[in-house]
């Protein structure tokens, strides 16, 4: 059985089976915004915290202090933001990041309805670090937060990189008796640093859950 044979057989079977055509509706749905809706930033912070993330609203010059943490100096750090220094030696093998303590990256976009941030990269090390690091810090500008996933897809280009992900909270599982366990295979902590707009900087701390 050749590959071509299978392809043609399946496509032929699909054509023979096709039910009467249904037209394609528009993908976008205007969100029904209720009055008294919280601000996008408030909604984003609430959703991200519900997903288990810590959310900090801060100024850009506070990123380093907040990312490294007050009481610990992580040894193995990989960072894509200028404010935090990478300490792990350069490598092209993602396996080398197994003992990564901290990964810090910028995100171009946050989603208010679900607290997710978009992280996309062509760099094999950055991609692996997002999942191998014990602690992940994502920096996102408050001005880039959009209401829904419809708005998000209108702004991102999923084809720009081989990898792109919405990330909402640290990795988790509830596979044993529906008990929530934070830190399944990937990061045990996710901190989202939101760079505040006017009047919102100054490490306004949203406490964790």
């Amino acid at each position, binding site marked *: *059985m050749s*590959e071509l044979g*299978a392809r043609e*057989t*399946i496509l032929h*079977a*699909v054509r*023979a*089976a*096709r*039910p*009467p055509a*249904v037209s*394609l*509706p528009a*993908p*976008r*749905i205007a*969100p*029904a915004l209720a009055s008294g809706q919280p601000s996008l930033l408030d909604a984003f912070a609430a959703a991200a915290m*519900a997903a288990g993330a810590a959310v900090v609203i801060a100024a850009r010059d506070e990123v380093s202090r907040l990312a490294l943490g007050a009481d610990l100096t992580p040894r193995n750090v990989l960072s894509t933001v200028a404010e935090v220094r990478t300490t792990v030696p350069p490598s*092209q093998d*993602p*396996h080398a990041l*197994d003992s990564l303590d901290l990964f810090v990256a910028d995100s171009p976009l946050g989603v208010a*309805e*679900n*607290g997710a941030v978009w992280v996309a990269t062509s760099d*094999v090390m950055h*991609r692996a670090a*997002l*999942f191998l690091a014990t602690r992940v810090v994502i920096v996102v500008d408050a001005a880039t937060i959009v209401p829904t*996933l*419809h708005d*998000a*897809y*209108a702004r991102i280009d*999923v*084809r720009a990189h*081989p*990898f*792109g*992900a*919405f990330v*909402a*909270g*640290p*990795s*988790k*599982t509830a*596979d*044993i*008796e529906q*008990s929530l*366990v934070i*830190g*399944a*295979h*990937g*990061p045990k902590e996710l901190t989202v640093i939101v760079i505040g707009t006017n009047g919102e900087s100054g490490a306004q701390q949203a406490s964790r859950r």
Partner: protein
Amino acid sequence: MSQRSFELPVLGRPTPVDHPKAAREFNADVARTDWHDESLWFVREKRDRAAASVPEWEELRARASAIKEHALTHLDEYLVQFEANALANGMQVHWARDADEHNRIVHGILSEAGARRLVKSKSMLTEECGLNPYLEANGIEVIDSDLGERIVQLRREGPSHIVMPAIHLKKEEVGATFHEHLGTPEGLSEPNALAGVAREHLREKFLAADATLTGMNFAVAESGGFVVCTNEGNADLGMALAPVHIASVGIEKVIPRVEDLAVFLRLLARSATGQAVTVYTTHVHGPRAGQALHVVLVDNGRTKQLAREEFWGSLKCIRCGACMNTCPIYRRSGGHSYGSTVPGPIGSVLTPGLDLERYASLPFASTLCGSCTAVCPVKIDLDRQLFRWRQHVTEAGHTPRAKTFAIKTSVALFDRPRLFRAAGALARFGLRLMPGFIARMASGPWGRTRDVPPAPSQSFRAWYRTNRPERP
């Protein structure tokens, strides 16, 4: 617990699935049945809260349904478009007519790469194809990396739910399994501790893997990419580390546009677990540098289902599992009682098409209450499809003999007024003498746990004659 060993769907003539019998065995442990019921209902309630938080929920469902219907009624075009764009993105595309062809393709890719250790993330398609036993027989180590799937894999069981594979197990049972296979202390059953051990165990497997296999939640024709949703990050660790990535997908998973993802992703996690979105919603649009990425498009009965005028709508399914969580039968009989890869209402409409005789009992594993249809994010008319399958099962003569006899007898009685009256008199007499026996005779399994009301002294017809003498 019944231990369901893996079976190859291609071997021999398997015995028919007897759902009522399997459900009866499950129900023998009343406390456990209640616990299972409540666990699933808890998830259903989380789904309700998540759905209620989105004012445009019903509009999203209608839109999702229409997009899927459009995609399925133009499926050949979108498959060709997906293939062309995936190739342009640097992926290799394979086509498999059935489970056996899929398994051989996967094994071929692994052999060519010299891969001996495969780490998988959740893929109901590969369960359906019996991939694990096939590869193991060919000397490949296969590790399911989703925690629930790893638990059932260690126990040599199949998943009992498509989203929560180990929902049928208590933490003590998971603890015992880990004690046996992963060397945890005897009696350790605290979920955090067990998950921590699994994390260490599976991290080693991720780092050592020669290849990884994932499913796809959505394949996007327009962009030639695909989306994989997980909470654990297991699919991502596999994809980010292994030099070979195989992504297996049923042909019905293709959607037209990137923007359609918003519609489906807003529905998927909310319907599945009540989360606004899964932790990781990963978009793959090509292999990472130095990696080989293979896509396997699998038919395995899907074109047959597409050709069924009454049932093609079942292919809209996005595998959220909401129909299982809400189903009063699933909650009280457990996923293994269905004897099919996909259990619950959606499994009971997808599976009979594969082998009507073998799965004849599944369309009857429903009260036809329609709760599944009410929660389905893509508006599959599950209760109607279940009802239609019952008619096909009956026409093909696959109903149990006692049931066929009872129905035929009823028809004969209802057709003959005099005989009906005589039978009624006999039944009233019999019920007074031996109520339990008659009840069991008349109602089958229903009578087993129910009392019959006292027999009336006269028939309705006689009562009407006496009390409404002025009317004909």
